[in-house]
């Protein structure tokens, strides 16, 4: 298995990472090497083995349905680079022309 530069670019797009040409080349080679190493788990028969996404013997941990102290609006937006009236300001997601 060899990762092509296009495949690495596709993964970078999924991860929303701007990578330089040099980074794409470097990661293609290194990801190949790490995935080849990870390949050894394919040899294990897991047809009857359930997955372990987490190890705790807990399920449906619920909080009391009660209000509690939280950050103020000012505190919540204080670290944001661009705010307006207590809101985060972002570039418009939808094109106004409707296209």
């Amino acid at each position, binding site marked *: 298995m060899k990762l092509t530069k296009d495949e690495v670019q596709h993964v970078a797009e999924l991860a929303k990472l701007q990578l330089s040409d040099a980074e794409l080349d470097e990661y293609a080679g*290194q990801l190949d090497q790490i995935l080849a190493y990870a390949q050894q788990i394919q040899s*294990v028969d897991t047809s009857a083995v359930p*997955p372990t996404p987490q190890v705790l013997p807990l399920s449906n941990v619920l909080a009391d349905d009660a209000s509690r102290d939280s*950050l103020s609006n000012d505190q919540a937006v204080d670290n944001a*680079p661009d705010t307006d009236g207590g809101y985060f300001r972002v570039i418009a997601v939808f094109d106004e022309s409707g296209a």
Partner: protein
Amino acid sequence: MGSQNSTKHLTSLGVAEASAGLAAGRFTSVDLTKAFLERIERLDGALHAFLRTTPAEALEAASGADRARADGDSRPLLGIPLAIKDVLMTSGIETTAGSRILEGFVPPYSATAVNKLKAAGTIVLGKTNTDEFAMGSSTENSGYGPTRNPWDLERVPGGSSGGSAAAVAADEAPAALGTDTGGSVRQPAAFCGIVGLKPSYGRVSRYGLIAYGSSLDQIGPITKSVADAALLLEAVAGVDPYDSTTMPVDVPDFSAALTGEISGMRIGIPHEYFVEGIQPEVEAAVRASIEQFASLGAETVPIHLPNTELALPVYYLVVTAEASANLARFDGIRFGLSVDGDTVFDHFRQTRGAGFGSEVKRRIMLGTYALSAGYYDAYYLKAQQVRTLIKQDFDNAFTDVDVILSPTSPTTAFRIGEKVDDPLAMILTDIFTTSANLAGLCGISIPCGFDDGGLPIGLQLLGPSLGEEKILRAAHAYEQSTEWRLRRPEL
């Protein structure tokens, strides 16, 4: 001269010793805090264990602790200064997780573990260096430059909690908090000749810990003695309404477990952990420690953990998948670096491309790939299934033994730069530590010798989930029967 000697004496103290000195009125918390701040000032230019110190806040808190003591407050951690790994949020104190993407970020709240330590009366000296977002085994991946090992400034302190480990080993702090996702408390403790405890998953709240691998991350103490690790664990452990993955169990009196008595304790020696590629002095030291445990009355039992060699590939698929999801929050909108783009997606791409370092990008890429359409079943799901087998190995072993003993790391501290260009070689340094995180176990690393170059060697004791009292008891009995802890780096 006299005053310099007494200052040096203060900074050589661990938590329990400093606590006894404060209680006896031999010195004040202000004396103690000043001594550590002065030593940091003097040594940290060369070590770079700290990303920032907070002297004004520390001295103010120390004065407050001294006043409280004068009013009759006698809590054991009152007035004890500590260092905190920079992946733990500290309200009002810049917290970067070692990443340029969080440069200047001042959290509006603190991690539960930090709040608990403050409530117990401790004082924050500053924030310690770490591999960016705790991704690494050497602290070389910090966005702010590497930390150096106090035993040899040309070598790494281990990682990712390398700043915390170096600070404690260099007497810049009596103890520190680190975090351990695949060995990041235990391995740097081994490389720096001190004690590092990874609690069972769910023992300590992760609230306010900047997430890396959420099913694996745990906060743990890095200390000069096993007794100090027990004291700090007791302070930070417990169920937290802000973290639904904390276990709803009472916190034991961990210090009471340190009886020195381990006769009849069954210690498993896993065949698969003594493999080719271990540095010969490391293997010899760990094998000698097995003899020492036997002479203390423990029964050493050969065991098998057949899926051991699968732990590292499983770990790297699971941890990178979780990391790629966790680090999606760094989008340049709510906090951290923001680089302009033409569209909202371009804004994300530019911000993340500029803000993350190369190891973080590499792990996000690997995790995104393992979760992507067409590869999810073969990589992520498969890894979760093999994780079940690894956990079953330990479940089976712990029906027969109380604790499991192994080396912490296959080698002693390596040279700065030695492995930075070879991600796979760097990964292999975690070969003995990742299983504990995958299976939710507790583990501790304690000093067990030195290599021919005078670098410390660590042994690891693993216990079942919530089995901290067992590993602490065994570690303490060994520690008190040997003199490794008395040898200190010359700085």
